[in-house]
């Protein structure tokens, strides 16, 4: 059976249909999960897509963290459910404490909208399972606050535990250690600034994002209860 993906919709999210279309094109079924939802039962994976949840008021993700759905997302993640945060979704996951660190404003003080090359650093996370380490993917970014930062102890921990999932080949935004994506200790929660859903069709100029989304669908498939 096709994995069933829940795409979390906050007020101000704007990449939800891109995410749905991308994973459906790859064989999944997907539906919106409103930010007031208090259950994620029946989903094989959750995606927190990009946009400006709650208008990015205060800080990106700062208010979204208090949406009722985030308790659901946290419980789902604690149970080992795959959770992916893309761009603003990554910011929400850091604010919610499901991923370490924070996304500060880009070095160079510019909003960046460009295609980057990212290198896959791990083949054992919800978003990269089975993707050979060293694979380079052309995937766009679209952000002002995408400059990943954390304290030295956290960075050492991320390195030691192999939790840096993606690195920029040519760092566009000043992220510490070229980090484009990280995961939690359980490897089932992954946040990344690049938008794989925007590189999932030849019409979009790159299909490289589909490599990551297909890996997510494999993870979701494995997580799904046997039908």
């Amino acid at each position, binding site marked *: 059976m096709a994995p069933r993906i829940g795409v979390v919709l906050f007020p101000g999210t704007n990449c939800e249909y891109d995410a749905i279309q991308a994973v459906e094109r790859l064989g999944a079924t997907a539906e919106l999960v409103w930010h007031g939802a208090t259950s994620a039962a029946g989903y094989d994976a959750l995606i927190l897509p990009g946009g400006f949840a709650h208008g990015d008021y205060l800080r990106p993700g700062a208010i979204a963290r208090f949406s009722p759905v985030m308790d659901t997302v946290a419980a789902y993640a604690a149970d080992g459910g795959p959770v992916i945060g893309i761009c603003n979704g990554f910011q929400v996951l850091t*604010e919610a404490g499901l991923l370490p660190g*924070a996304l500060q404003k880009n070095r160079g003080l510019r909003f960046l909208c460009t295609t980057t090359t990212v290198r896959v650093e791990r083949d054992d996370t919800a978003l990269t399972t089975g993707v050979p380490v060293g694979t380079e993917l052309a995937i766009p970014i679209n952000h002002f606050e995408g400059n990943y930062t*954390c304290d030295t102890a956290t960075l050492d921990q991320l390195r030691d535990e192999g939790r840096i999932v993606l690195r920029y080949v040519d760092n566009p935004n000043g992220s510490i250690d070229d980090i484009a994506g990280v995961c939690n200790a359980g490897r089932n929660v992954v946040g990344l600034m690049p938008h794989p859903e925007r590189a999932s069709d030849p019409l979009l100029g790159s299909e490289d994002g589909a490599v990551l989304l297909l890996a997510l669908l494999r993870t979701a498939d494995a997580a799904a209860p046997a039908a």
Partner: protein
Amino acid sequence: MAASRQFSVQVEVLLRDGIADPQGATIERALPALGLDGVTAVRAGKSFRFDLAAASESDALAQATVVADRLLANPVIEESQVTVRPSGAPA
């Protein structure tokens, strides 16, 4: 129930040292146009004010600090300063 008093709270949030501050940098770059070229170390932050009912000034400070640390500032990249002062008569 203990009588509560009203307090005025001000929370100032600034980016930590070493965190990129594009607003501060841009403001600083604009200042020479005013003929002021001696201004340095400009930092832009946020200021929040709210009223708070609490049993005592120390209780008010404790509550306001929770607001600052858990919502108004992200401790990974920001630092906050909380000021509490009594306002008005006992409620």
